[in-house]
């Protein structure tokens, strides 16, 4: 299918999101769509999938102009998509979600067996471990992402738009996805691929279109002639700033110690020590139980055994409120929208939520001026791009949202920060900035427990790396900032454990 976008524009109140943007997609290619957050990628995808109507320009399929009034029209025209937002029905089974808009009804009624058989076919392309009869709300974030992809695949459209499909899945699954995409391409499908991970783009894309501030910065350039630096400068307009900081020494005192911790999620014998001012990485495949461990540490889920010591003293943390206010432990959730931010509230309120107690004066009154002056430095320091701190957080780009999330915890003055997937879906510039910031936080004496599925990120940030597999810690790797050796060491450790026991489903995450 020859999909062509010609000079499309779209304005929202206060913003020109797209300004005469073009994109041409040929049959049998993987076309990368790149750009920083806010550059207009998602808006463009929403126009192609019929969710938005463009103010100007035209869309043609095989030379004929098309008008999409709803996602329905786009699907009918043969365009499938994986959107950036989570688009699953929580209470529906995996199978039903995959086949949602065309559930099989052989005699007027749904045929559940057929649904699960059919869904299985697509899901098996990516992950055999997910049961199609499970309710989606019981899946982990990564598993949901895989379901999303299977859902898009199941449309069997000749054109597939993928807005950051790999954002929350691990390398293992990414590899499977890429193999699949390549096969589809070779069979003649056209694929638009949006990602912030340059490594992935270089691995898989044939051509690249770059957006910057709602305009074309590059239009369908072949990847063969592209270098990393050139791509970055197209997106950012300047060169990438690469953090390269030597690992810190680790002879400071232990601030957080886990001794044989067990949890309701099934963790057992988890023991580690986090020292003052260090960044301790926690790496693992999807379903390894990293986020769940973090949640147990801050008291959001009960521990069933073992002990936690904060500053050498035994700590019984029963909720996140206590974790923050008594033990100064903060948790920046991977699920920004559900657990991190209050999207409907302003930047000021989101950042100040952790420090209202400190700001409140007589009778619990909060002085608005004091609040603003407490918040403003963080907005400036983190370069949160916004016209005002009264902006609703839901209206910010993903990167800026993440900055707000981090700012909140900086303001809270936590001594121990658990940071879960800090740069998922974040553009390169912001990502680099956040990396710098995390280093800065650690240098300032805060201890960081970093959870990330992004191997380069892990290598760039952590001082040492714990490896978690199936709810157990299976090893520790020292980080010398050399990507190849460190990632090899980690992966071979995981594979060794994997081979030592019969293959377990990775889907048992609660």
């Amino acid at each position: 299918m020859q999909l062509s976008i010609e000079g499309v524009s779209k304005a929202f109140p206060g913003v020109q999101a797209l300004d005469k943007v073009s994109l041409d997609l040929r049959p049998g290619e993987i076309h990368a769509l790149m750009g920083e957050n806010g550059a207009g990628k998602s808006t463009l995808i929403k126009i192609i999938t019929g969710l938005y109507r463009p103010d100007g320009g035209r869309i043609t399929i095989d030379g004929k102009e098309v008008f999409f009034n709803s996602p329905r029209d786009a699907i009918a025209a043969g365009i499938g998509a994986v959107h950036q937002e989570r688009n699953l029905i929580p209470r529906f089974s995996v199978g039903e979600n995959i086949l949602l808009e065309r559930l099989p009804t052989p005699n007027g009624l749904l045929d559940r067996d057929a649904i699960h058989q059919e869904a299985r076919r697509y899901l098996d392309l990516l992950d055999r471990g997910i049961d199609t009869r499970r309710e989606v709300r019981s899946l982990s974030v990564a598993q949901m992402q895989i379901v999303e992809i299977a859902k898009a695949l199941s449309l069997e459209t000749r054109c597939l738009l993928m807005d950051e499909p790999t954002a929350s899945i691990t390398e293992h699954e990414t590899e499977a996805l890429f193999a699949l995409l390549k096969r589809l391409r070779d069979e003649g499908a056209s694929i638009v691929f949006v990602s912030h991970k340059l490594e992935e783009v270089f691995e898989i894309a044939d051509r690249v279109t770059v957006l910057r501030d709602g305009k074309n910065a590059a239009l369908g350039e072949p990847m063969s002639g592209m270098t990393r630096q050139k791509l970055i400068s197209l997106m950012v307009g300047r060169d990438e700033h690469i953090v390269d900081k030597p690992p810190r020494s680790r002879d400071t005192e232990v601030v957080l110690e886990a001794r044989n911790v067990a949890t309701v999620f099934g963790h057992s014998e988890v023991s580690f020590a986090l020292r003052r001012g260090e960044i301790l990485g926690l790496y693992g495949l999807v379903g390894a139980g990293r986020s769940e461990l973090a949640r147990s540490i801050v008291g959001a889920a009960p521990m069933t055994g073992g002990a936690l010591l904060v500053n050498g003293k035994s700590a019984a943390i029963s909720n996140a409120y206590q974790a923050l206010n008594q033990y100064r432990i903060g948790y920046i959730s991977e699920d920004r929208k559900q657990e991190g931010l209050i999207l409907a509230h302003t930047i000021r309120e989101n950042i100040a939520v952790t420090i209202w107690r400190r700001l409140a004066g007589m009778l619990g009154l909060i002085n608005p001026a004091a609040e603003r002056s407490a918040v403003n430095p963080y907005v400036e320091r983190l370069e949160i791009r916004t016209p005002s701190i009264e902006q609703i957080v839901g209206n910010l780009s993903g990167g800026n949202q993440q900055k707000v999330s981090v700012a909140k915890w900086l303001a809270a003055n936590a001594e121990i920060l658990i940071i879960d997937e800090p740069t998922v879906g974040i553009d390169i510039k912001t990502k680099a900035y956040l990396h710098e910031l995390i280093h800065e936080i650690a240098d300032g004496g805060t201890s960081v427990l970093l959870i990330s599925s992004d191997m380069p990120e892990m290598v760039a940030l952590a001082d040492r790396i714990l490896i978690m597999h199936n709810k157990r810690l299976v090893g520790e790797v020292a980080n010398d900032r050399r990507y190849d050796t460190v990632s090899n060491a980690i992966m071979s450790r995981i594979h060794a454990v994997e081979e030592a026991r019969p293959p377990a489903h990775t889907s048992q995450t609660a």
Partner: protein
Amino acid sequence: MNALLRRLLLVEWSGILAAIILGSALLAWLSPAFLTEFNIYVMLRSFCVALLIGFAQMVTLAVGQMNISVGALGGLVAVLAGGMMEKMGVPLAVAIPVAIAIGAFCGLLNGILTERTGINGFIITLATASAFTGINLGITQSIPFYDMPPALVAFGSDRFFAFPYLLIAPIIVTILLGIFLSRTIPGRQLLAVGGNPHAAELSGISRGRITVLAHTLSGALAATAAILAVAQLGSAQPTIGSDWLLLSFAAPIIGGAALTGGHVSVLGTTLAVILIALIENGMVLAKVDPYWVQFVLGALILAAVWLNRWRAVTTGTD
């Protein structure tokens, strides 16, 4: 805990079922009249209208909406049906479908207004509730229509042993609704829109059309409830529906529906209505002092809910 019990406990309505069984056993022991044929008939009959009221609200809850006008709409349909039959001599076979169609139309109106204006369905149906009641009172001047066709009245009171003929209607509706919500495309789409409207839309489901569908269905169900109420009471009273609102929410929500939409249970709602009917019947049978009735009602609802909560916590299916 043996495996069967554990599996049963996993089902979300099992707590209510347990409450029903416990309550029935207690009542059978307390009052010999409880298990008599006539009392069973009485309970089954009182359960009919309530169940349809619960369903009328349940379908709007499913899509993430609310219908404050269930009662007003039911009242309007009741008097229009009564008026048609008494004043215009419309035969029963015509009047019933027309009345249900009127209910569906009123629901359609709710749906279209909600969808087109983008105003919260709560507010729209609050306003239309007042309008429907106004038409009802304007037509009847608060005087009921009495001359109902004998066939309808007989349908409302006759029985086959303990089985009231009136129960046929809710049984059919329950089965159809169960199939509709679990096995048909519009039914699944309805729950999909309730569960995640944005995702449903991206999957090519028309959110607007489905919302309108839910309201229309709600109107038709409320109309059916109204006709049953007319049959049951033997006259078309303008006050029909005036006390439906709270029950309409209580039944689906006690039955496990999420107020936020996307999750409802036909079986759960049915059991909740049975539970409520049982409690009310039981209080008369047990000769509860009238001043204690309200208190006992509250305590029993709380106990049933607590039982279900205990089940959820124990089995971890929160």
